[in-house]
């Protein structure tokens, strides 16, 4: 969830940590993930965040050396409404991995049964009309008869 329940520093660090986690997973295992340890870890407290825009700089070590990204978050009513990530990677690999994050977050997902979720609606492709369904059924019947 991107809804916030922690303080802003922790959230910004979460974003950086997520980023670094992505980068680390793309890098060679030998680099480890210790570079992602935030050096300004703040105690997690509950409470509301002030609306506004926050920027943090994340540093990590890749096989190419020290790397840096700036993450800017906009908060409104405890929800992240905007994220901007600026990468400073110099090597082709760093540029590629940072670019992939800037373009969006990639993940493998697993389906959960909709029946077991508490949702109001389901969004997928449009259900088809009776006419379309009849046509598909007719074609299948023709194909079986051939």
């Amino acid at each position: 969830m991107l809804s916030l329940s922690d303080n802003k520093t922790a959230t910004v660090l979460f974003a950086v940590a997520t980023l670094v986690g992505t980068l680390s997973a793309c890098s060679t295992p030998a680099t480890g993930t210790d570079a992602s340890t935030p050096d300004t870890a703040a105690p997690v407290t509950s409470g509301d965040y002030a609306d506004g825009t926050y920027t943090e700089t994340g540093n990590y070590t890749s096989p190419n050396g020290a790397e840096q990204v700036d993450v800017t978050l906009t908060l409104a009513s405890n929800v992240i409404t905007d994220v901007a990530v600026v990468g400073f990677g110099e090597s082709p690999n760093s540029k590629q991995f940072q670019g992939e994050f800037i373009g969006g977050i990639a993940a493998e997902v697993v389906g959960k049964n909709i029946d077991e979720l508490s949702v109001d609606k389901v969004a997928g492709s449009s259900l088809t009309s009776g006419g379309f369904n009849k046509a598909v059924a007719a074609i299948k019947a023709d194909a079986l008869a051939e």
Partner: protein
Amino acid sequence: MLSPSKQFEAIGAPWQIDTAQPLSAEADAAIAARIDDFDRTYSRFRHDSLVSTIARTPGTYRFPPDAPPLFELYRRLYTATQGAMSPLVGHALEELGYDRTYSLQPSAARTRVPQWHEALSWNGNELTTHTPALLDVGAAGKGYLVDLVAEVLREHGVDALTVDASGDILHRGDADLRVALEHPRDTSKAIGVVSIRDQAMCASAPNRRAWAGLHHILDARTGRPTDRIIATWALTATALEADGLATALFFAEPSDLATEFDFQWVRMFSTGRVEYSPDLNGELFVGESGTGGSGT
């Protein structure tokens, strides 16, 4: 969650409208009239529509006042997708069998989809076609009609509502609407849940309108169905833009679309991998082996 519900079929798909109070007979009639007006203008599935008239005879045609937002969005997305998303795919869809009678029988003919400037001029209220052109506004039309139906309801004093035109959803009210993202390969499952309020969310996938190894989402540059992406979702202020962006996500990189549009998105590749915008208000069900985080 709002209730009661009004359910009906329109423009080839089931609809459901949820409101706090039952709709008046006047509102009911106004919705039906609005949908019929839209269909008479834009449907390529009826012989008496303006779009069908234009297909028979090139020329200059005046469109109703609802046309500018639709054509302007199409023009922006045509540019943003470098010509892949085009309203000129109507003829190609017919050749593939997605025609008025749902023949679903691909013909041998493959006519090149004309480029916008070859076939169309839009001056803000009149469309001029330079060649016989069968328009298909299926990539954004249903979302737009969701906005237009919501506008009719607003005129009848109904502000809190959910209009769900089967994959194109607009929700206004005091509470969030939680929407599951349907898995395109197993429609009993979801890959995530997002919350929307005072905004629209539109989904697109080729899994249902599919026949003979083909489907209805065409790349106008090739005239062929796309195959790299198997589902998209777009969230933004209007269902018109959300619907159009959901289709554009099949053809364009989200980061390129984001320079032109303010929206959130999710898309799923044929490999099963999912990409989503960092500012998504929701949760994706990230697997154990996932490298991206949902934050939960």
